[in-house]
């Protein structure tokens, strides 16, 4: 069964079409990567899946329920780490955690165990009393992640979690995500870094609100290596994605002409 389903997502902001019939599906227990350049529509897609924006067309399903009509049931099964700040800067690490735990109505004992574990694995323990606005960028992201994980969501949506995070923390973050996925969580994340694609079970390349490419990273690379468009023996994801983006631009120019 699919934990996440995006069906023909369409959304306009004025004259800009941010999502243009974007479709993909993420089976339960997988780590799915949305890759795309700035302005490709990654954030819009994630916000649509979280039920934060209305769609002009299409349907977003999370844990088998339509996000638009699922209400609190959908939100209970969802964790979101947005691209921008999302925590109370004037509350401490521990206070932010406690506040969001209460919104999810987590029992006290549950909260204590859970927050201790999350503070441990994110190594935020020593900073529990520090205000959120005094955290470094990487620590802030980890706190946002901890807040989103408090209620053990089935589905975790992460918008560019690795941007602004140092390489060591970044590796740790990926290890954590794989741990969660191994426990049965479904993770969808977006990233502007093409090279992060190989760490996902499946990736999708998004461009101008449309899906250009989707599949298992290994298979995608193999196909590309065999195609005439590839001029290298051991191509990277970066060359693959850039080649595909160039092709898309060429196709559009031809269409316009």
């Amino acid at each position, binding site marked *: 069964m699919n934990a996440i389903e995006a069906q023909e997502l369409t959304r306009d902001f004025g004259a800009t079409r941010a999502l243009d019939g974007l479709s993909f599906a993420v089976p339960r227990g997988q780590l799915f990567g949305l890759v795309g350049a700035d302005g490709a529509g990654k954030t819009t897609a994630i916000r649509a899946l979280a039920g934060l924006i209305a769609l002009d067309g299409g349907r977003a399903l999370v844990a088998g329920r339509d996000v638009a009509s699922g209400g609190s049931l959908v*939100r209970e099964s969802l964790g979101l780490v*947005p691209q921008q700040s*999302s925590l109370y800067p004037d509350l401490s690490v521990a206070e932010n955690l406690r506040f*969001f735990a209460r919104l999810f109505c987590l029992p006290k004992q549950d909260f204590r165990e859970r927050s201790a574990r999350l503070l441990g694995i994110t190594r935020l323990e020593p900073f529990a009393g520090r205000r959120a606005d005094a955290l470094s960028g990487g620590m802030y992201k980890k706190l946002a992640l901890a807040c989103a994980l408090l209620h053990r969501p089935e589905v975790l949506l992460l918008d560019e979690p690795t941007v602004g995070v140092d390489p060591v923390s970044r590796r740790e973050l990926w290890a954590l995500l794989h741990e969660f996925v191994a426990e049965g969580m479904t993770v969808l994340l977006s990233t502007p870094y093409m090279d992060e694609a190989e760490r996902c079970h499946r990736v999708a390349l998004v461009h101008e609100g449309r899906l250009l490419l989707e599949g298992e990273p290994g298979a995608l690379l193999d196909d590309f290596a065999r195609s005439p468009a590839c001029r290298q023996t051991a191509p990277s994801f970066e060359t693959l994605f850039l080649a595909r983006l160039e092709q898309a631009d060429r196709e559009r120019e031809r269409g316009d002409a």
Partner: protein
Amino acid sequence: MIGKERTERAEGTERMQKAGKRGRAWAVALAAVVRKEVRQTLRDRRVMFLLIVAPLLQTVILGYAVDFDFENVPTLVVDLDRTATSRMHARRLLADHTLQRQPGGASVTTATAELRSGKAAAAIVLPPGLERDVLAERPAEVQVLLDGTDPNRAMVVASAAARYFGETAEDLLRERLARAHVPPPPVIRAEPRALYNPGLETAPFMMPGVMTMLLVITTTIVTAMGLSREREMGTLEQVLVTPIPPLVLLLGKMTPPLVIGCFDVFLVLTAGVWLFGVPVSGPPAVLAAGTLLYLVCTLGIGLLISSVSKTQQQSFLAGFLFIMPAILLSGVMTPVQAMPAWLRMVTYVNPVRYFIEVLRGNLLKGAGFADLWWRLGALGMIGVIILFVATMRLRKRMA
């Protein structure tokens, strides 16, 4: 049959349990939002200042500074007659301290210049030949030059001068009749007696105004900015992806301003009673009910403002755009009856107007529910409508 009934009942209980569980969850979330709001408010020194120190300062400053009982208006006496009579009139005119003589005023020209420079607010010109005319029982004209930029003050001076010379003329007439052995004509005198605020002091009149203005300023802006702040910080969305309904967040956010508003009323009232002798003559229950209903209105307006603005700055500006006309069209500054009819219509939907009337009636005149019920009702109605519209708008925007 029985089996079906049993399952129906079981389903009913299950639904009830679910609803109960959800209710508890909302209560927990509401308490969490309130606690968070209180913590943030206490942590923010600027907000604390705005909510506690500013009201006290304003009470004291407005109480002392805003005084419509004009006394000691700086006045020039341009005595062009320089006789015993002119000096006597000048002295008697100034005797009740409404007017206070300023040095200067050698001639009408210099007096005019001094009025323009602000050295004096009025000039009494006693014309040459005043004594001669009075003795000869010829009409005389005393000119009163006024700085009309402050119409209230000008009116006070004009009426003081008119009153004095009116009485003087009456005295002269009496003397003349007495000399001719004619009995003086009967006089009709007005005997003003103020039933409330007998000393006609400004402070007790001002204090309800101060309370009204303070409450609308602090609570509206704090509420409007609070929600915009959550939107700006991205925390609003983070709360919206939790299972609690947006209404819980709104309710939670409104609690602190409500409590603080009530506290401010208490604070200002205490200061008013203690420093300026404001009477608290009506039933306190009416005062409490009025305050609560008024706060529902101001908080609702705050929410409405945050539903149309994106940032804290926009909320702040919109708050002021609402507050200024709301105060001007309330009767706090000038009586509603003095406004043109079309503006008076606007005051009927202005909660500030009803609250000031409730406060003045209750505090100064001792009015109770019997006198003020329809104003309280109007406040309640406006409050409920605004709150309803605001939450609908916000829910739509949040969803």
